[in-house]
């Protein structure tokens, strides 16, 4: 994970950091299209269950809170690696990964609950197809993020994660926060407005 041979760049910005931002711009279009599908089909299912029948606002508020707090622990990890405090970095990055995994746990049990008690699977109706696909792809992004964070945790023991290399953490952090803000949108559009709108 070193710099390339070019140290000078035209803008003074590291290539990798620019890459992650352009990539996140691209990801906006990906989630935008999934959210568009969800919204266009909102209320168009010819049979139940509807969002109001199955979505559990209190539980999801808790899992939203968990994911938001993981963003906080992520910036703390970043702040520590920049100060060269690898020990604290490890604590915070592991904390972030655990919070991320907790969120995934919530999602797993939510999906299971829907399938078993809510009688909602991706095949049931339009709502099922759009809901599971949108939140499922978000969950897949969280999973990639958790693996990435754990890899950084392991990488810190190799001794290469110097304050200068805080960039590796910075990039992972940007991805992580992005996944978090996508959830902010999903929580509002799918859960809050989705249940409330009925």
């Amino acid at each position, binding site marked *: 994970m070193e710099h390339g041979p070019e140290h000078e760049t035209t803008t003074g*910005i590291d290539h990798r950091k620019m890459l992650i931002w*352009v990539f996140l711009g691209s990801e*906006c279009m990906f989630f*935008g299209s999934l959210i568009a599908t969800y919204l266009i089909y909102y209320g168009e299912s010819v049979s139940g269950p509807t969002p109001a029948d199955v979505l559990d606002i209190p539980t999801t508020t808790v899992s939203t809170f968990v994911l938001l707090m993981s963003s*906080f622990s992520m910036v703390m990890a970043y*702040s520590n690696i920049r100060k060269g405090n690898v020990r604290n970095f490890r604590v915070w990055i592991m904390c972030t990964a655990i919070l991320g995994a907790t969120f995934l746990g919530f999602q797993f049990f939510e999906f299971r609950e829907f399938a078993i008690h809510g009688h909602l699977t991706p095949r049931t109706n339009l709502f099922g197809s759009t809901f599971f696909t949108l939140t499922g792809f978000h969950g897949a992004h969280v999973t990639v993020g958790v693996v990435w964070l754990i890899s950084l945790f392991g990488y810190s023991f190799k001794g290469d994660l110097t304050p200068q290399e805080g960039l590796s953490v910075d990039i992972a952090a940007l991805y992580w926060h992005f996944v*978090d803000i996508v959830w902010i949108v999903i929580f509002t559009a799918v859960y809050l407005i989705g249940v*409330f*709108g009925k």
Partner: protein
Amino acid sequence: MQSSAHASGHPTPATYAKIASILAVITAIEFGIFYVPDYAPGLKSVIVPAFILLSAVKFALVGMFYMHLKFDSRLFSGFFVGGLLLATTVIIALMALFAIVSGERIIVAAPDDTTVDADTTTDTTTGADTTDTPMAAPTHEIGSASSDEFVFTADTMTAAAGSEVTVKFTNNAVTQQHNWVLVQDGTKDDVATGGLAFSTDNWVNPDDPNVIASVNLISPGESAQITFTAPEAGTYQFVCTYPGHNPTMHGTFEVTP
């Protein structure tokens, strides 16, 4: 441009903690206002805008402070906000394109539509002022939506058992062909599926026992009518059997004793 990621104005852990508590509080507020209409129904209309506003604030806080867009190169904001704006615009444009059609459906299905209300028509059958053609009962008019939505202009029609019924069906659509088929209750999808192999017979199987009467497939702007004797009292369905229309384009035909 200097590598501003290491600029002096970078937030401290205290700032991060402050942002975290604001995020937590906003999430709690969102949870709270979700239940406000239970106690204050008058506030219902402001709740959705409030959700959008609050989540936008959360979004902006994470973007500006945790992703340090506020302190970093403006190029990053450009990439990200550019992607975000494009995505938002496409979402809004797509929803608008679908809403143009759905919006019309709501108008068309409204009760004060120009279509003759089926109940009124039945009443006038027994009335005395049908003078022009004494032998024929008054015509039941029904049409398809003037958009290309797959719906009829009325959800229910009524007739008296054993009476002569004339149904005049008008295709108001822009591009879609439609028909009107009266079938036994609960069989609309079976009839439509059974008609799939009969594209030259107006998508109706001529030997289907569930079919009571039908108006042939017509193109936009055309209308056609049939006259038949109303079956025995009970509930029936009418449906358009053009492939794919039956899930939404149907209604109930009540026959009164």
